[in-house]
């Protein structure tokens, strides 16, 4: 048994190395205009001359930008990975387009009391704001507002609707 395990493991390692090797091999071929392997160029076309993303990257970025909502757990303003990716995309976008201003609207599901939810919504908006600031967006360009539970996207009384409503909306 042990022998087989070692065999499999070593096979994987070999493949991985091979993969890396092939990547290394491919990279110089596909990135002729770029100088360094590390990418720092912003996503939007026409803004950063000389830097370009892979198609895959660009597609992903566009997808994330089209997302205007990040969602939260009940009674929480913690940003999860999915939210983080979206916020990062928007932050990059804002950094790249310094004329843009963004409004962050915090919302909650219907449960609990309205005034507390008004404050919780604000906390969610502020959590997104904080992250954006860290990612380089100037505070003066960010506005936050909370609607508590007053602007739900759906009216049903089940978890799938509640999850939709627990959100921060990113608006330009």
């Amino acid at each position: 048994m042990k022998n087989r395990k070692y065999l499999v493991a070593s096979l994987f390692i070999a493949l991985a190395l091979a993969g890396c090797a092939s990547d290394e091999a491919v990279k110089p071929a596909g990135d002729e205009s770029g100088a360094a392997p590390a990418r720092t160029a912003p996503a939007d076309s026409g803004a950063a001359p000389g830097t370009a993303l892979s198609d895959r990257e660009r597609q992903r970025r566009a997808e994330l930008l089209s997302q205007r909502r990040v969602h939260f757990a009940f009674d929480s303003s913690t940003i999860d990975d999915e939210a983080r990716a979206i916020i990062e995309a928007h932050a990059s976008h804002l950094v790249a387009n310094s004329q843009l201003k963004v409004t962050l609207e915090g919302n909650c599901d219907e449960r609990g009391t309205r005034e507390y939810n008004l404050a919780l919504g604000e906390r969610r908006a502020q959590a997104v704001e904080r992250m954006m600031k860290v990612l380089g967006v100037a505070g003066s360009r960010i506005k936050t507002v909370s609607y508590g539970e007053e602007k739900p996207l759906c009216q049903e009384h089940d978890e799938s609707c509640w999850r939709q409503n627990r959100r921060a909306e990113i608006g330009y």
Partner: protein
Amino acid sequence: MSFAAKWIVTLGLLLWSFGAQAVLTIEITRGVEIGTPIAIVPFGWEGQAAPAQNISDVIEADLARSGRFAVLPRKDFISLPHEDKDVVFKDWRILKAEALVIGSVRLSAPGKYQVQFRLYDVFKGTQIAGFRYTVGAGMLRSVAHQISDIIYEKITGEPGAFNTRIAYVTREAPAGVKPVYKLQVADSDGVNPQTVVRSPESLMSPAWSPDSKRLAYVSFEDKRSKVYIQNMTDGRRTMVAEFTGINGAPAWSPDGRSLALTLSRDGNAEIYVMQLDTRALRRLTRDPAIDTEAAWSPDGRDIVFTSDRAGTPQIYRMNASGGSAERLTFEGDYNARASYAADGKSITFISRNQGGFRVAVLQLDNRTAQVLTETSLDESPSFAPNGRMIIYATEVRGRGVLASVSADGRVRQLFKLEEGDVREPAWSPYNRELQYKE
């Protein structure tokens, strides 16, 4: 035993049995709690056009809703007296009525009605109370509620709260049309609503001033939360808080001169007190947590509020001038939106219990809490000014409605359903001006 001793013993026994008690004693340790049986005879009406308000109907509905009375059905009445001389107590003793109400209405002058009623103790055969009112047609309903208050107080020993009003928010969203929000004020039974504010955006947190002449509330008409005060007598409106961030949770001080507010102008939701004449602000909480939903104690010394400084929302109490806060709720992971009863001895709030958000009451002396409802989406509990009933918002079949529960949890009732969603009820204090005395 010696001879003499035996004699003494016998004599003694005889004397003792001679002098013993004759009266049979029976202990009663249980009763029923169906409410005082009361008979309300439809008021007599003299005149051509009957008044729009059926006064005895209003009284009957009030007393029945309170949960303290068992209103006897009219079909069982043997006689229908309107005047004292027509009352035959035997007719009411047979029905096991403990109290009897009779009355009459007549037109005393054009547009002026004279309303008279008498309340009797049936088994004693005596009158408990009787009053006469002279009012315009518009006040007839208020008179009916006041009669209910008098009957309630005379029979239960506690003040009634029928001659009061409630404020609440409605949201109507007919298909294809943008929703409309209204802040409305109605009689304590939900009848006769008057629209105070109408807006295309949300309205929240109506709060009565202690003299019940003004209403403070939160409006999103400018696309963010702002606090306004509406004067009920002249209809004028003042904007009192439009600071950066949240402006919410207005709460009147018992002297009517200050308003507690939740503002996040300093970065996060904190509680402030604004002096209304000077607009001067004093900050009461300093905590990175959410601090909101302040409510004053009736003596003006304390403020209870919601804070999640311990991780989840709980009820805290601090001095009305700020300072350290004492935590009051320890059961459950969500306790919010507390407000005092008029005697200052208990608070009602929303508590998450078995997964549902329910109305609860906490006794402040021994810190015992009791959950009063079994629904799962309750909000905005508000005590009646006599401390005996709590009005709150809940969901029934997917719609927001108003309900009331007695402070001991025994009686629950739904208000009649308005169009659309109803939420955010607030029970007015006693309106001294509406009191009539003769």
